[in-house]
């Protein structure tokens, strides 16, 4: 169903996620949406069959986001997938496949980005 989100900035992410964990929420997954010049990261949590969503907007020029895998280990799968598909780097990822969770070394682009860049060019540059 249509939903409301709590909008966050990077510095709030870990504390808000930890607060949800302490309240007994189960981590469902994260969704990354390419908005053109930025990404929306939507974090979905469940408590008693009701979903709560956090939204973090990330500029493409600054694609480093704190990992929540230290709080919810389950997040490591979707964070690695998002690294592969969108080129976002998750700082502190519990098990980091370095952008090759699904994709082979020879894949040089981020396939889910609307306007993609070569991986070699992407370090430190905007998309």
């Amino acid at each position: 169903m249509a939903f409301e989100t709590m909008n966050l900035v990077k510095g709030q992410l870990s504390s808000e996620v930890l607060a949800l964990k302490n309240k007994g929420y189960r981590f469902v997954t994260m969704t990354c949406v390419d908005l053109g010049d930025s990404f929306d990261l939507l974090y979905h949590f469940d408590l008693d069959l009701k979903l709560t969503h956090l939204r973090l907007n990330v500029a493409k020029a600054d694609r480093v986001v704190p990992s929540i895998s230290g709080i919810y280990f389950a997040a490591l799968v979707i964070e690695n997938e998002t690294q592969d598909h969108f080129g976002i780097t998750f700082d502190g990822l519990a098990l980091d496949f370095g952008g090759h969770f699904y994709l082979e070394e020879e894949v040089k682009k981020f396939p889910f980005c609307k306007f993609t860049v070569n991986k070699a060019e992407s370090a430190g540059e905007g998309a």
Partner: protein
Amino acid sequence: MATIVPFGPQHPVLPEPLHLKLVLEDEIVKEALPTLGYVHRGLETLASIRDMDQMVQIVERVCGICSCIHAHTYCMCIEGLMGIEVPQRADFLRVIWSELHRMHSHLLWLGLLADAFGMESMFMHAWRIRERVMDVMEATAGNRVIISVNKIGGVRRDMSPEQLRWVLQVVDELETELDKIKAVLTNDYSVKKRTVGVGVLTYQQAYELGAAGPQLRGSGVAQDMRMTGYGAYKYIDFAPVVEKDGDSWARTMVRFRELYQSIDIVRQLIAKIPDGEIAAKVKGKPTGEIVCRSEQPRGELMYYVRATGDKYLDRVRIRTPTFANVPPLLAMLPGCEMADVPIIALSIDPCISCTER
């Protein structure tokens, strides 16, 4: 001294490619690391070049075994965004086919599990019983696996009163057949020896690691997305099947008991199915973002759809149950014997096509 042993991607018990790097000390697993990517297709990106109606066929191909439920959940998203009211009869038909999918999925899995621990007769009986479910799907939908009955606004096919009566006869036969193998499955020494106390996932672990479906319920967490009452589930009596031990045996029992539960749900639905239209008219393009969840045979399925009113959807994100069950699997393996790894891996009913999409 630690030894690293590869498990998969090609392995006799695995129907799909999953690779685990097992760190062993003698015969005991100390750590397991997954490697995925053997069947990654990037299906979600097809939303940018296929329209919302064509996407129904795309999402059905995320996974053959639960194709009907993928399409149902995707359609719920689009219908929610566009404010389409699905006819009640269509809701009932969708759920009847969904429960048939659950039955054939659980029977397929039971056969694979039995094959994994060397019980060939159980493997053949489970798949023989499954064939009756496939017959129903072929007769009512025209296909055995990817039945393509869902469309945005409702369903493509109806079931006649004669077909519904025949489905009731078939589920009666299924119940009789299940009763015959129940005694073997629940009392056999070998089955218990291979599954009881093997691959334990505690209540706390299941919840914190985000387990889904029978993995969650096998560890005592009474959560099933059908409890949210989507589709026709709101019209039936239903309680989730829960076991408390969290081991491979508990997960096996959850699925086996869910076979009976699906039979009961189909009976209730057929008793209550209303007459009427099977599809609503659809006009325009969706706008907004939405999340819908459903219960696949393997657990909770979540779809996120974002649309801007264009021909193509802006984003389709699919979170499948096996995707959620990878971290719990990594927690179940440490401490087990190498010989138990195939049973534990199969006890989560892994679907790698779903996981990688």
